[in-house]
């Protein structure tokens, strides 16, 4: 696309399908993109193996007569076949390394490769969680160092590293709150959750037996201290508030809200999904937060890996610190020691809420996150937050004349939220708009979240983009908005036409679920 001097595209030829987009080939392949049969459909591979192994020792079987007799039904591939199978599959995926990935709330920032290299050092990757503690002093020191960084960045008293992901951390934080209330003999049954919250918040509260009381947002998308006060009573255990919130806004009354919550004898759980906007700028501990999970895979760049693994350490206030789950790391003079047993923790003065996972948490992610923190340093982390906020506001400013903002034109944090009012009457929905972005080579923004905003489009550019790339992204969205306005609806409703697949029939997938491959049964190809 050619650009004029303002960084806007000069009017391109209509892209969309193009004449050759529907071309049928003999193989079904399309240039660099190959059709890949399932592992199970590669005939004759059920006897093959791609792993050479030593001969088993000749021994009398000691399996107690429970030998598996039937073949399992797993095909094996030699190494060349396996490389091709997975490389070809990989070529059907969008990734941060291939383009801007503006998924709001998900924080698709650059994943430094140094972190991958360090996590693979045998001293980290080839260490067993139950080795004697004297043989893992470096691993424990790393956990302790990471904990120190997290506490300094958040201004909190204590951290539980073991939760496996954000939602798991959220459960951990809420369990600590419940344990603290029980320890003081205080039975409370309600948790306050704003309407715009992540779905995990109410799911966690209800799992723990709490009733969820919704708190409405103001017209500007934030929660008022009055609304919180109105919802508070002596039966409220906690409020679960995301800050910056899911609309990309910093809650301006957060300190007053924390005070009101504390006055009512309740606790403040902060969903830390959006911590990446404020690292090095604001410390949640200074705002009155009692517990907050930190998504190492968002804020501290551990790779999302196509859906995990995550890592969700939870920072806790002084009041909640004694209830942290096992395990945790302590330092006794020169030695590090990991406390794995709740009774032992009690003798150390704690009152742990229990254990949330076997072993010690996502060590591989701890190494990567610490590598990120050391690389950036205090200055770089602060700069990263500022650049993320700057980039989101730049996108907002450059789009605001064509797109519509649900809460008026106001500064945002690391992500900017639009609604679908600007698409009204065009025959184009948020979904259509997102799919047209795919044809232009972009991963869509987060769609239809938060639920409180109609046709929501949540754009998080992150700090990892150059200005030039932001400008092209902005220009592309402007172009698409103009096409919608001009009535070129097919550009959207047919999209995507240039991706490895057209739109998928999700209704069929749900109505006739096929969750495993079975011979002779497959959807029509």
């Amino acid at each position: 696309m050619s650009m004029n001097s303002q960084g806007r595209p000069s009017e391109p030829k209509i892209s969309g399908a193009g004449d050759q987009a529907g071309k049928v080939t003999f193989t079904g392949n399309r240039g660099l993109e190959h059709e890949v049969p399932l592992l199970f459909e590669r005939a004759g591979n059920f006897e093959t193996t791609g792993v050479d192994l030593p001969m088993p020792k000749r021994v009398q079987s000691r399996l107690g007569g429970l030998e598996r007799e039937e073949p399992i039904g797993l095909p094996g591939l030699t190494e060349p076949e396996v490389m091709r199978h997975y490389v070809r599959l990989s070529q059907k995926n969008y990734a941060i390394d291939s383009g801007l990935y503006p998924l709001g709330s998900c924080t698709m920032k650059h994943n430094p490769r140094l972190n991958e290299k360090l996590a693979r050092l045998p001293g980290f990757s080839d260490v067993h969680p139950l080795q004697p503690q004297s043989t893992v002093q470096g691993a424990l020191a790393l956990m302790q160092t990471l904990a120190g960084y997290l506490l300094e960045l958040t201004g909190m008293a204590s951290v539980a590293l073991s939760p496996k992901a954000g939602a798991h951390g959220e459960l951990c934080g809420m369990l600590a709150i419940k344990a603290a209330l029980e320890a003081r003999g205080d039975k409370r049954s309600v948790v306050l959750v704003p309407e715009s919250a992540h779905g995990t918040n109410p799911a966690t509260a209800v799992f723990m037996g709490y009733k969820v009381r919704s708190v409405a947002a103001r017209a500007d998308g934030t929660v008022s201290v009055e609304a919180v006060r109105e919802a508070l009573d002596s039966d409220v255990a906690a409020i679960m508030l995301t800050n910056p919130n899911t609309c990309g806004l910093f809650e301006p009354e957060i300190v007053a809200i924390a005070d009101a919550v504390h006055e009512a004898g309740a606790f403040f759980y902060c969903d830390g999904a959006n911590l990446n906007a404020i690292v090095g700028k604001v410390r949640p501990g200074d705002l009155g937060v009692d517990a907050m999970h930190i998504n190492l895979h968002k804020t501290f760049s551990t790779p999302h890996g196509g859906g995990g693994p995550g890592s969700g350490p939870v920072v806790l206030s002084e009041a909640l610190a004694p209830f942290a789950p096992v395990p945790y790391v302590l330092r006794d003079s020169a030695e590090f020691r990991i406390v794995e047993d709740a009774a032992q923790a009690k003798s150390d003065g704690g009152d742990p809420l229990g254990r949330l996972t076997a072993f010690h948490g996502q060590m591989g992610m701890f190494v990567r996150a610490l590598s990120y923190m050391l690389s950036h340093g205090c200055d770089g982390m602060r700069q990263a937050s500022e650049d993320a906020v700057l980039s989101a506001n730049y996108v907002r400013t450059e789009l605001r004349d064509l797109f519509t903002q649900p809460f008026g034109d106001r500064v945002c944090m690391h992500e900017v939220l639009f609604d679908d009012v600007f698409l009204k009457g065009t025959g184009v929905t948020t979904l259509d708009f997102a799919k047209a972005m795919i044809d232009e080579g972009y991963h869509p923004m987060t769609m239809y979240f938060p639920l409180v905003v109609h046709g929501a489009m949540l754009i998080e550019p992150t700090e990892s983009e150059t200005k030039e790339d932001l400008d092209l992204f902005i220009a592309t969205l402007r172009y698409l908005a103009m096409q919608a306005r001009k009535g070129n609806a097919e550009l959207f409703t047919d999209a995507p036409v240039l991706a490895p697949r057209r739109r998928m029939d999700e209704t069929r997938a749900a109505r006739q679920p096929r969750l495993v491959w079975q011979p002779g049964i497959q959807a029509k190809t």
Partner: protein
Amino acid sequence: MRYLPLQEADRAVMLQAIGVDGIDDLFVDVPAGKLLDEPPALPLGKTEMEVERELGRLASQNVAAGSVPFFVGCGAYKHHIPASVDHLIQRSEFLTSYTPYQPEISQGTLQYLFEFQTQVARLMGMDLANASMYDGSTAAGEAVLMAHRITKRSKAIVSGGLHPQYRDVIETLSKHSGKVMDALHADPLGQEDLVSRIDDETSCVIVQYPDVYGRIQDLAPIAEAAHARGALLVVAVTEIVSLGLIKSPGEMGADIVVGEGQSIGNGLSFGGPYVGLFATRQKFTRQMPGRLCGETVDAEGKRGYVLTLSTREQHIRREKATSNICTNSGLCALAFTIHLSLLGQTGLKKLAEVNHGNAVVLADKLAAIAGVEVVTQAFFNEFTIRVNGDAGTIIDALTERGVLGGVAMSRLEPHDPSIRDLIIVASTEVNTDADRAVFVAALEDIVR
């Protein structure tokens, strides 16, 4: 800063375009006095060389499993991982992609998840599996919650052969969600009577197979007894390689099978990230937690895959969700499925035979030491020995002699004096004759 592409000149132009004077004008909603004037009190950014040196120093203070005779198991196992596995999972398109919410540009992830689900279901002998959980222990916790939902009962009976840390996870979830857990005592000899504990309040019985002591037992009688009272059998498999050689839990009547998939494709990594496996019967599909990938067609009728049945999940159902789980363990599931597709059933069976053979040889050598008794009769690649002394002290003495010789059961179960003399020993394909000789000599020297 090497990871931040915006330059000062860019920032100035962007601030101007936004119409503000400085960056802090974008932080106007932060309450007065709460915006930090200075960066936090932490070191400044470092070069790649410096970070590598600093973390490399910490790594060197740990004893890597591959550097010593190594026999530690108990829920995490040292196996050899083919080089191609780690190469493939580091491809950008797998490593740096998000959850496949836009299926048209995520078919790579979705197809391997579909293949993964099929492999897991077949290994477990079950109808279907999900796209993975955080790890084996959290999968076990979720399985118990699912059994509660299905049976509308709230008591789980936990075998004394279940990994104590798995039991503790279930206990934590039970305690805080108003459910009941009836856990039996440590059961190294396989003498527990699970069946008589099952009553009309029981939603499920959960057993480990092979159990934490390494023991293999026929689960069919437990399944029958549970089903007779309207309860389910949940089986946890922490050494998934075993299923290359022994009967699947599905064959023996399990209703939900969970597993730790680390042994296939994933390194020890001091306990995580690992990959939880979760399989069940068709009729329970809609009660499953976690992500599911399903087959469908696109607008042109081409086969493809999508995340499906998401009406079970928190982002749609919110407080009515089957679980608060949001993430799976995608990249670890990828490592698992690649390694397993290299092995195939032929390679997996042979790998399992090598493991079993090595364990049997080691067990016989250890049994020949005066003062050491092998207490496990039927086992796969892990078994329990009784030593004439405190097991923890003996493990430490072995460590001093350069052998990581297993796990003292007292580390997992510190308050049960009856198991203070038990060590769980694992032997996989990585152990050589020389490793075994060093271990046996060292133990002989210690217990003499």
